[in-house]
């Protein structure tokens, strides 16, 4: 019963979010501000994680492919497909749920407890639309870019380790990257990250928007935002994989 009530409350909030902004110019300005906060500020974490994971993944696959009947180019292929299909969309989103989700929930939660949201409402502003829609839009623009960046850097991480060590030859690694490439996998990855970006920003905003109390409750909202975002990302990952790949 409580779950239904929360879902209802979420849908009511989203119906207020997805309305026409009062001023297009202000909305666009807010979207760019949010792109900087949500997207640009996440580049470094996405880059570091992707490069290192690409390197580690290549090493681990190479170490485990000990049989001479397994062609070495499969190391490049597995690195490519792992990053495109799962890592750069799902795992990166789990990281972003922690970084971006907690940031959004604590920002909006603090605005709630310091009556800044009430002040917006009293001015006649649709506070949900003003605060949340630019965040969702910014995430929809910047997350797919982060996704592509992660794919490129992850594969580059594998290339670096192949260059630095002799676990796989550069030729085999690059051949594996090109071997049986399915372009739809990139589309699938982008579709997933678009859905995840909406989940992370809207769920985190929801928890921030309905924060009541003080600093302790802001912390709790922030934690809830991350936990529920992660659970929903994993759930929708399963649903989307079933729908798009089978």
């Amino acid at each position: 019963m409580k779950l239904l009530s929360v879902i209802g409350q979420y849908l009511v909030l989203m119906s207020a979010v997805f309305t026409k902004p009062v001023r297009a110019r202000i909305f666009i300005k807010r979207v760019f501000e949010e792109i900087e906060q949500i997207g640009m500020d996440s580049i470094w974490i996405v880059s570091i994680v992707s490069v290192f994971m690409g390197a580690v993944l290549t090493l681990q696959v190479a170490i485990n492919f000990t049989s001479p009947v397994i062609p070495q180019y499969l190391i490049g292929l597995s690195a490519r497909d792992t990053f495109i299909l799962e890592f750069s969309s799902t795992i990166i989103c789990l990281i972003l749920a922690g970084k971006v989700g907690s940031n959004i929930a604590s920002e909006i939660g603090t605005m709630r407890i310091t009556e800044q949201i009430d002040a917006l409402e009293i001015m006649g502003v649709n506070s949900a639309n003003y605060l949340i829609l630019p965040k969702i839009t910014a995430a929809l623009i910047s997350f797919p870019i982060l996704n592509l960046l992660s794919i490129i850097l992850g594969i580059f991480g594998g290339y670096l380790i192949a260059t630095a060590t002799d676990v796989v030859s550069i030729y085999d690694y690059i051949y594996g990257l090109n071997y049986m490439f399915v372009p739809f996998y990139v589309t699938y990855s982008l579709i997933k990250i678009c859905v995840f970006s909406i989940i992370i920003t809207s769920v985190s905003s929801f928890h921030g928007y309905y924060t009541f109390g003080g600093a302790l409750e802001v912390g709790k909202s922030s934690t809830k935002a991350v936990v529920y975002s992660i659970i929903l990302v994993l759930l929708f990952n399963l649903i989307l994989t079933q729908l798009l790949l089978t």
Partner: protein
Amino acid sequence: MIEVKNVNKSFGDQHVLKDVSAFFEPGKINMIIGRSGSGKTVLLKSIIGLVKPETGDIFFNEREFIRANIKFKREIRKEIGMVFQGGALFTSQTVEDNIMFPLNLFTNLTKKEKLNRVNFCLDRVNIQNANKQFPSEISGGMQKRVAIARAIALNPKYLFCDEPNSGLDPQTAIMIDQLIHNITVEYNMTTIVNTHDMNSVMEIADSIIFIYEGHKWWQGGREDIFNSENDELNDFVFASELCKKIKKTNP
């Protein structure tokens, strides 16, 4: 002019507002007083629509507010200025941007005209050279004055102040009181001030409503308070032993 008719509000089992009716006139400082937890903040929030009463009506110049759709409510709210207890300034924006915020959203003024309006409002609340400062960089008294400047930026018809003097020293509190009074008279606004600061009441109140346990217990003017026979009001107004002695020695 704001009219409140038979407003009731409960939170769970707790009946916070019990059939409250009141009338707030324009050009006057209407004060709501009462002990903490008496229901005065809920009454104020009910009037501006942040809390939805279960029953009752609220009229802004004969326009029904509670049951109005959200679009109409937002139109009425554009005529409202509100000074929150903590100021509620946007912490990520400068003083100038805070005051310019409603102008950006609801006017078609040029950048220069908006800046002139911001400077006029800041000048009106006696603040100079703070345009580029952030709320965290200015004092509590200045934050309250910036909040007043933001509230009057769009020339509101109605001004609401929720405990505007809380946390301020007596001199700054008097300055804020005088500011609210002068603005109310100057723009002929309907002003409602929520307070338990009796100095403010004695300083600027034109009409006073005393809320006791969710009821409108007493209503009158500044002078009437001293002569009232209402025990609960006297207990609230003359709470300290010193005040009780003064009341006894000056019947």
